[in-house]
């Protein structure tokens, strides 16, 4: 049986993890390779690296980090953040990334999705969508949820898939950081609308939130950062808990 995936997300700047992590046993908590290896050993199903660096020089650092991670871990990983061209994606995949995620660049120029899908295959193109509710409507936002766009979540999700997205990563800005659970109503609606896997993001606080996003939100995967980094939830314990609640996991 296909299992539901648990995906820790690591924020990266200049080749280092930025959010504080609470792994006391790590020699270097800022080393993405060491943290990634730890998560892989603990049973994470996939990893997402979100690069928040900007300059060209720092992009080269990212390529090297991707290579080091690919060398170290034996589970798939996605790299996102600031990707805006076929060349950007080529460099990351050549260095061993399995998938890339695009966000703002796809909203600004939706043709990019098709260009990437044709060149690299839909299976490695994740379209990340940040959205929050304004007057009862889910509106797509850019720049980490700061800038509203004209686009509505469900229309954009459908268009992204039609253009070649192989997977969607939906972050509810209304839920992100609240630790009150995922946006399950919107996730469920998304899952009915498109026929690609959906990664739920934003709102993880308890193990029950993961059960809910799989059972009620019909998500294929759930992504979280701080609950894992700060050891509030350990992945092996979460997997056991999910199993007890009849959610298929590895």
């Amino acid at each position, binding site marked *: 049986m296909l299992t539901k995936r648990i995906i820790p997300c690591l924020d990266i700047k200049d080749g280092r993890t930025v959010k504080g992590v609470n792994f006391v046993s790590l020699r270097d908590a800022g080393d993405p390779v060491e943290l990634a290896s730890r998560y892989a050993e603990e049973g994470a199903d996939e990893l997402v690296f979100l690069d928040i660096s900007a300059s060209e020089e720092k992009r080269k650092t990212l390529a090297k980090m991707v290579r080091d991670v690919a060398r170290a871990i*034996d589970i*798939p990983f996605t790299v996102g953040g600031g990707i805006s061209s076929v060349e950007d994606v080529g460099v990351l995949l050549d260095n061993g990334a399995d998938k890339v995620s695009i966000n703002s660049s796809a909203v600004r120029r939706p043709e990019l999705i098709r260009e990437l899908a044709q060149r690299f295959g839909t*299976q490695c193109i994740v379209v990340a969508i940040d959205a929050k509710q304004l007057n009862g409507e889910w509106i797509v936002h850019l720049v980490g949820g700061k800038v509203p766009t004209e686009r509505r979540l469900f229309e954009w999700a459908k268009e992204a898939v039609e253009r070649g997205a192989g997977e969607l990563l939906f972050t509810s800005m209304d839920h992100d950081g609240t630790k009150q659970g995922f946006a399950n109503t919107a996730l469920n609606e998304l899952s009915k609308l498109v026929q690609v896997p959906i990664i739920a993001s934003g709102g993880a606080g308890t193990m029950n939130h993961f059960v809910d996003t799989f059972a009620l939100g019909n998500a294929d995967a759930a992504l979280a950062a701080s609950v894992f980094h700060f050891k509030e939830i350990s992945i092996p314990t979460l997997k056991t808990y999910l199993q007890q609640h009849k959610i298929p996991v590895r």
Partner: protein
Amino acid sequence: MSVVIIDYGAGNIQSIKFALERLGTTAVLTNNANVIREAAHVIFPGVGEASTAMEKLISSGLDTLIPTLTQPVLGICLGMQLMCNRTAEGNTKGLGIFDTDVVRFDTNLNVPHMGWNTVEGAGVLFGGIPQNSHFYLVHSYYAKSNGNTVGSCTYGIPFAAALAKNNFYGTQFHPEKSGEMGAQLLKNFLAI
């Protein structure tokens, strides 16, 4: 006793190279027919679209070379699909090594089939691997089960997750991305 990964411009071959390095094996990436023929083991990877990948094989003459190889050959993902008779993706004629066809998932489930699924395996590739171990897959087309099937997986319907015939082997899943069990499978292949 060299291991060659066929490099024909189709996909993420670094990951396979790194997975072999983790097992202490240095692989050579090449499309040179002589180097491939001399290798002790050959890995035939592939990611992307079938007809484009097949064109690349044909333009480098690898389409005629691969079926004549006599050492152990392992096709991974699209590599395995191209070793079949025919694939519906781009209506592409395959290498005809495995006597089966590749078709698209016709299902109300999500396509691509993406993530970790259980595989019921048998034979030399699956030595030391418990039944129903999880492997990582990402694909929209699948090889129909036939007499060459040595690993079976179900996504709506059962399909061939692993094939074997004489010195030829194939896995639909990515052993290089399938944790410990994937590493064991690669180790088993290298021991053939």
